[in-house]
């Protein structure tokens, strides 16, 4: 059982953060960054992003394996954008063999957002079907119905955008993901406490742990950039205003993140922190 799964089973308030694999082959600085991150707070695990925003970097499978060797527990993010069903399944078997226990299964941002907009996106499976596939592999059968010599064991995560509208449309997919094997969720960055609490009211009935995505806003400009360019992220105007008015926008951003963490402590099982280069502020964000 992974540490993440164990902590959630013990009802601990769980903290995760994320790291992008290096853009190159030298891994030492990224391992140091991950270690530093793990030391900053009692992190349950660190997400390793998969060509995030469709920008090409080292394979998250390789880097997650390297983190395992370094004694750091990863959550391997795997998207459907860049791999067909053969590649996904073989990567999953490889992941298990490398000692990777946690997964976050995603559709993936569209290739047009990234640094290879001319790429052909795959999407042979969607995230729901990938969840089904992993469930099958864990039961010892691949998508073709063929038996595995030995099945992998994973703690399987999925993503949700709690603030997406219409609510019922977003929620039916959330339910489908649970039906297809999601054992925990990490959410898209949430900023609207009321809406998130409303989501959790419905979500908690399904009894699958949810880690709220908390993104550190560094400035009003950044908030506006996110609103304009990052799919699924919506910073409410009131928060943009707060950052705009502040003499110290970064401190204001930390305060906003801290408020979101406080809301999460009340209504969900943990937080997933996205601090984008300001990892040293994590203890401050988590301080009660």
């Amino acid at each position, binding site marked *: 059982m992974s540490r993440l799964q164990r902590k959630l089973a013990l009802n601990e308030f769980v903290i995760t953060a994320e790291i992008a694999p290096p853009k190159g082959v030298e891994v030492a600085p990224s391992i140091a960054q991950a270690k530093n991150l793990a030391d900053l707070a009692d992190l349950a695990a660190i997400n390793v992003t998969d060509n995030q925003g469709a920008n090409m970097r080292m394979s998250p499978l390789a880097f997650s394996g390297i983190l395992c060797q370094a004694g750091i527990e990863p959550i391997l993010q795997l998207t*459907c*954008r860049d791999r067909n*069903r053969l590649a996904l399944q073989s990567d999953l078997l490889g992941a298990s063999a490398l000692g990777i226990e946690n997964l976050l299964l*995603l*559709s*993936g*941002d*569209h290739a*047009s*957002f990234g640094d290879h907009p001319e790429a052909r*996106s795959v*999407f*042979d*499976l*969607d*995230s*729901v*079907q990938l969840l*089904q*596939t992993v469930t099958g592999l864990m039961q010892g059968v691949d*998508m073709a119905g063929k038996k595995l010599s030995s099945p992998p064991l994973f703690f399987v995560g999925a*993503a*949700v*955008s709690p603030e*997406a*509208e*219409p609510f*019922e*449309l*977003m929620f*039916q*997919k959330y339910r*489908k993901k649970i*039906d*297809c094997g999601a054992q925990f969720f990490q959410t*898209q960055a949430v900023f609207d406490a009321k809406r998130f609490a409303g989501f959790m009211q419905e979500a908690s009935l399904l009894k699958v742990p949810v880690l709220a995505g908390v993104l550190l806003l560094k400035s009003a400009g950044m908030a506006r950039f996110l609103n304009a360019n990052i*799919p*699924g992220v*919506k910073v409410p105007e009131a928060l943009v205003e707060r950052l705009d008015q502040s003499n110290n926008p970064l401190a204001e951003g930390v305060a906003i993140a801290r408020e979101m963490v406080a809301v999460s402590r009340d209504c969900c099982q943990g937080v997933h922190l996205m601090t984008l280069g300001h990892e040293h502020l994590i203890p401050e964000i988590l301080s009660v």
Partner: protein
Amino acid sequence: MIISRQKNQDELKKSLIGLSKVFLVGCGACATVCKSGGEEEVFQMQEWLATQSVEVTGSVVVDEACHIMRAGRDLRQNRESVDEADGILVLACGSGIQSIAISSEKRVVGGIDSLFLGNVRRIGQYEEKCSLCGECILNETAGICPVTTCAKGLLNGPCGGMADGHCEIDQGIDCAWHLIYERLKNQGRPGVFARPVAPKNWSRKQKPGRLKVER
């Protein structure tokens, strides 16, 4: 119909390097409607080629350039002008260009890019609704195809990028899953939302596609 667009002139100039005389072929079907290879465009192309010092030995607008036999017949009927040319410039979709290539040993230059199988909203405005995937699920998705009209071709609902019913790649485009959801809701049917949709059987889409109808 096949929606197509003429290549830009720079690209066309590069493709024509080495040719001083061409025979010009248009198509009376889709390329005519798209204004990329009808009578009018063939005429305009002829005028432009003159400015590029490329002589046009003759031209024909084939009824349907994708029809291999008819394309061949039309070339034969213009044999003299075709023989006189160094190459054939075709203003038809990729199928049409290849019908001509099958029918002649001459160098063939395609003058248009084929974009998609499109519905006509009005003349000059085309939309892709079907991507010929080989396994139609429209009966469960309220007559709206997510394989084609969802930017990611997802089969189990919207991605995390949907914002207020719009698509993450373009806020000017409706999220296909939002449209499906609204339509099924209005019809009082769960449709595709009632169950997880299994992965698509892409072997149903033959590549290359072939079909021989038994008579």
